[in-house]
């Protein structure tokens, strides 16, 4: 029951988070629909195409009539960058497109102190909110009349400040005086008053906590602007990060993937052939392969680190194992998938066993092997990044993990984008090689 209630509480937290994201998701969907509407309108002014698809009257429910709209793809990608720029106050975007930013400038509010014996006095707090990164002192203010004295404070944008307003007052908290009103609004611990440039919240112990409005933009330490990420790319490309250039980090990751994958293929393909061609080998390796296949390679990282350390050898062993089972299973099913009539035909044409292997079984299994290779390269790329997150001296994963420890969000985002681009490129490259080398795929 204890576990169930824990899970229930977690589920509740997830729901609350989802609900808080709901307005943004709704807004995003609204933008998608709006863009669709705009495109429909624009399309009316373009010359209509009379291709086969456009002449269909039944399109809703006809899967073949649904093709990816290039305009939508382009707009979607542009929109991601526009939203990114708008919510980070990027200079790439004219400022009227920016989401409301954090308050910067000066503001003030008054507070009222009430002593235990019923005296009250007002004083003013002057607040200067300055952009993060610069250094601004609190302005000098005239202390003013009465026992409550005026205060001043300087706060960096996005930050808040607990201000002990009573510190300079003649009758303070030590004499049981309390802040009883903000801008004339009566308060008690826990209440929040909107003072125009932000909120003032009275803490549990009665101290005003000044929170200048944060706006809707992201703080650079959570999400840097696109241009900041780009300038970090160029900086790391030339000067490097942790003693290695960007090319070295990415190159090492790629090197591990390629070597691990090639080793996995060199062992896995013959293993798969043996399993596809011999009862004995099939029986021998089936339990091993079928057990190892569902084990995520990431689960092997701790063992590989214990056995082989965090150097290249360990990583390559890990990637070898990641690729091995996938390649073995691909080669096995490639051999098993050969149509018996092809083998019979080849025997009837006088082919020997070796010739059957060379001219029938191997070419017939190539499409399956290429499919497996594509999967294996994808898995290896994911595995190498994860392994580098855990422990490495160089590599894409190490780069973003180290950067995250220092809150270098720009490097993290840059790394994620580069990892994505490389993963995508690997897949494209494999598809291209596949088209080039096995044009008969799926045509048997």
């Amino acid at each position: 029951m204890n576990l169930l209630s824990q899970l229930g509480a977690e589920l509740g937290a997830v729901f609350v988070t989802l609900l808080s994201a709901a307005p943004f998701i709704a807004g995003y969907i609204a933008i998608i629909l709006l863009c669709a509407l705009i495109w429909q309108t624009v399309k009316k002014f373009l010359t209509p195409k009379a291709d086969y698809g456009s002449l269909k009257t039944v399109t809703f429910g006809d899967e073949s009539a649904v093709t990816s709209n290039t305009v939508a793809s382009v707009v979607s990608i542009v929109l991601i960058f526009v939203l990114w720029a708008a919510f980070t106050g990027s200079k790439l975007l004219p400022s009227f497109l920016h989401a409301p930013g954090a308050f910067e400038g000066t503001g003030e509010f008054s507070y009222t102190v009430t002593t235990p014996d019923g005296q009250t006095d007002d004083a003013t707090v002057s607040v200067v909110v300055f952009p993060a990164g610069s250094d601004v002192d609190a302005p000098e203010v005239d202390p003013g009349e009465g026992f409550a004295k005026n205060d001043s404070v300087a706060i960096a944008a996005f930050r808040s400040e607990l201000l002990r307003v009573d510190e300079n007052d003649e009758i303070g908290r030590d004499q049981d005086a309390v802040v009883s009103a903000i801008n004339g609004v009566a308060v008690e611990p826990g209440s929040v008053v909107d003072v125009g440039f932000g909120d003032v919240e009275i803490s549990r112990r009665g101290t005003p906590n000044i929170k200048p409005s944060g706006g809707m933009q992201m703080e650079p330490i959570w999400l840097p602007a696109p241009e900041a990420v780009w300038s970090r790319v160029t900086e790391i490309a030339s000067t490097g990060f942790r003693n290695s250039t960007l090319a070295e980090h990415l190159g090492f990751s790629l090197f591990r993937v390629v070597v691990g994958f090639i080793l996995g293929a060199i062992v896995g393909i013959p293993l798969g052939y043996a399993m596809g061609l011999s009862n004995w080998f099939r029986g021998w390796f089936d339990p091993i392969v079928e057990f190892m296949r569902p084990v995520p390679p990431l689960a092997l990282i701790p063992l590989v680190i214990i056995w082989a350390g965090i150097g290249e050898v360990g990583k390559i062993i890990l990637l070898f194992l990641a690729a091995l089972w996938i390649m073995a299973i691909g080669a096995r099913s490639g051999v098993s998938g050969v149509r018996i009539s092809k083998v019979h035909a080849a025997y009837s044409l006088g082919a020997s066993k070796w010739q059957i292997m060379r001219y029938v079984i191997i070419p017939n299994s190539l499409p399956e092997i290429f499919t497996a290779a594509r999967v294996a390269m994808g898995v290896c790329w994911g595995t190498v990044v994860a392994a580098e997150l855990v422990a490495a001296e160089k590599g894409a994963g190490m780069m973003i993990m180290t950067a995250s420890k220092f809150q270098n969000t720009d490097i993290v985002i840059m790394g994620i984008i580069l990892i994505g681009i490389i993963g995508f490129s690997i897949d494209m490259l494999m598809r291209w090689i596949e088209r080039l080398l096995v044009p008969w795929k799926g045509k048997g």
Partner: protein
Amino acid sequence: MSGLSIDKISMRFDLPNGGSVQALKDVSLDLKAGELLSVLGPSGCGKTTLLNIAAGFLAPTEGRMVLNGNTVEGPGPERGMVFQQGALFEWMSVRENVGFGPKMKGMAAKPKAEIVDHLLDVVGLGAFKEKAVYELSGGMQQRVALARCLANEPDVILMDEPLGALDALTREKMQGLVLKLWKETGKTIILITHSVEEALLLGERLLVMAPRPGRIHKEYRLPFAEMGVDKDLREVKKHPQFGEVREEILGMIWDMEEEIMGRNEGEGS
């Protein structure tokens, strides 16, 4: 001794549940060189099993098959096969498919190319030499399969429903081609088919097989194949005897199917 002789072949498969199936029982047949035999029968009559034994892919439990004095013990280039479809090597071009047999023998490039060119002309695919086989239509693919088989100069050609997957028009054209090749090359051909008309048109001799156990039910000697060599096949079909034999065989097969159904119902209750 020239020709193919099937000598009292029986075939029994053991089933996993301990029972067994008698696929063929005491099938005997003598085929002279150059004869064209078509085999017809309801499903389960063992005609494909018989062909697989002739090709050497299966060993009979009793009896033996003798070709030109040698007992058949495995697949070999002297017995060519043409399959229904999908037996071409799609990773090779049309030319490479047809040249596969000569290549396996280690024939030099030049005589091989001559054989391939000649056969592609014979089957009417001279212009498609360098095409990939998957770019061809089903009928063209079967022409390639025929050419590939002939390139190896087999003594016997075994055809396992070679035209079964083709549309009616293409099928008719291909039947003409098979007759033409039979006459020109003088090969012994065994053709298995589901179609009674095809069996009549492409069988100098016609074997009707019966199921459970698979056995020869009736044998015919027919004039239609000879007629069809230089005549339109549609004309041959109008021959009065053609219709008579067709009705007779159809009735025979109907009766067999009915019997099977009845027996299955009996087993079921």
